């Protein structure tokens, strides 16, 4: 009668369930997916498009491509980019031109949306792939992207 049949089916389904976990238990040694983080720091490499942090690459003679046009500041939804620029006279053309003084980037407010990099006309800022961004004091999270004493690469027009 159905009393014994549903006991039998019940046990059968329980056994199949146990077979699945049993299977994982048997080849547990190679099956484990967890990464031993602090030990494998050298071998752990992020994908090349990984959005770690916004940085401004400088070439060998300390020059970058940011002209201070503030389009990234406008594009940013969270106001995590502040540009401090000042007027300067362009030696060849003699016209007044904007010159970047400080490109302040608040990593604490950045939501990694990538709109600033999208909006930058001269591709001055790019993604870096570092994932260890935790710091001891909040003030370390406010970074100035252009290194001191760096200038714009000649001929970069926004």
């Amino acid at each position: 009668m159905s009393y014994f049949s549903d006991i039998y089916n019940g046990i059968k389904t329980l056994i199949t369930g146990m077979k699945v976990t049993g299977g994982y238990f048997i080849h547990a040694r190679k099956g484990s997916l967890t990464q031993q983080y602090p030990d494998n720091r050298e071998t752990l490499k992020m994908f090349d498009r990984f959005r770690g942090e916004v940085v401004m690459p400088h070439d060998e003679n300390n020059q970058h491509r940011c002209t201070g046009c503030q389009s990234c500041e406008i594009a940013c939804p969270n106001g995590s980019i502040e540009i401090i620029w000042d007027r300067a006279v362009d030696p060849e053309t003699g016209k007044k031109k904007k010159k970047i003084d400080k490109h302040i980037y608040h990593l604490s407010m950045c939501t990694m949306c990538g709109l600033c990099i999208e909006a930058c006309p001269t591709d001055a800022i790019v993604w870096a792939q570092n994932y260890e961004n935790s710091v001891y004091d909040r003030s370390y999270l406010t970074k100035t992207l252009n290194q001191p004493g760096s200038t714009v690469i000649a001929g970069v027009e926004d």
Partner: protein
Amino acid sequence: MNFLIMNIPLNIVSTVHDWIYSIMPETAASITVMVLIAVAYLALFAVAGLYLVLLERKVAAWFQLRLGPNRVGPLGLFQTIADALKLVSKELTSNDRIDKFLYNLAPYFVIVSTLIGISVFPFSKQFQAFDINIGLFFLIAVSSIGVIGILVGGWASNNKFALIGAMRSGLQTISYELSVGLSILTMVLLTGTLQLSEIVEVQRTGGWLILQGHIPAIIAFCIFMIAGTAETNRAPFDLVEAESELGAGFHTEYSGMKFAYFFLAEFINMFIIASIAVVLFFGGWLSPFGITDGITWFPEVLWFLIKVLVIIFLMMWFRWTFPRLRVDQLLTLEWKYLLPLNLANLMIMAIIIWMNWTI
């Protein structure tokens, strides 16, 4: 020189035993010996409980594609010792509306009843604290005291979730006490005695009880395992501290050493259920088919521990595979399925014994 390895501790025990009897009057000496044995057992099984916790975490990890604790000490062996130290040093927090006396009493109920239960097990020929002739009956009685601790703890901590958890545990233990008792009863029909060392002796000649009793014994073993896991509030029956419904169930308000008592008691309970199963079904410390009887230096305790660990692994396998039962399904399983099966099984075993068709 029959048991070389087993002998060394026994020599120490007997020398200490004689020395105490020599320097003290009769009654005081027996009390001190009992206290010494109790302290030894407490230390031994506290550490055994800790390593059971580590085993549980390691086995759970291997089931779940993980590695388990492997940072503290070599291969993570000191992990639970570190946990125990942490729990000891933790502050005993509680809210101000608890019923102070009962709140503090509850953990002792649970831990003491489990530790009493261990003293009766025959780990090997000499290695048994109390060989009383109503061994099994004593075990069942003691294991049902533990639930009073849970009920009192749940009620006294004045927390709604704890109260629900405690009521569920009372419900669960009372109903599953039945099947544990009945399945043990079917096996006692075979052995004829309740004394644990006698039960092991019976199995020395006729082979393990699960073989002697063939089909009814196997059914009794299955029911015992189901009821046993329910008894210790584990695996598919862990409604008492159902993580996803009640948070932490009855020990929500406990912290520090009090929580450690509840936690350790659960694992020692698991050890007790596994040891009852081993003594009753798989021939205690007897080696399978007598292969190592001849070898004198081989310690029988190892056989007992291997069998217990196999049963414990089975209980852990239950835990990490099955979802949880609802309260009413828990009761229908017991009263509508396990109980009738148990009674029928008892009848069959009785008829077999009465007509003595022993195969």
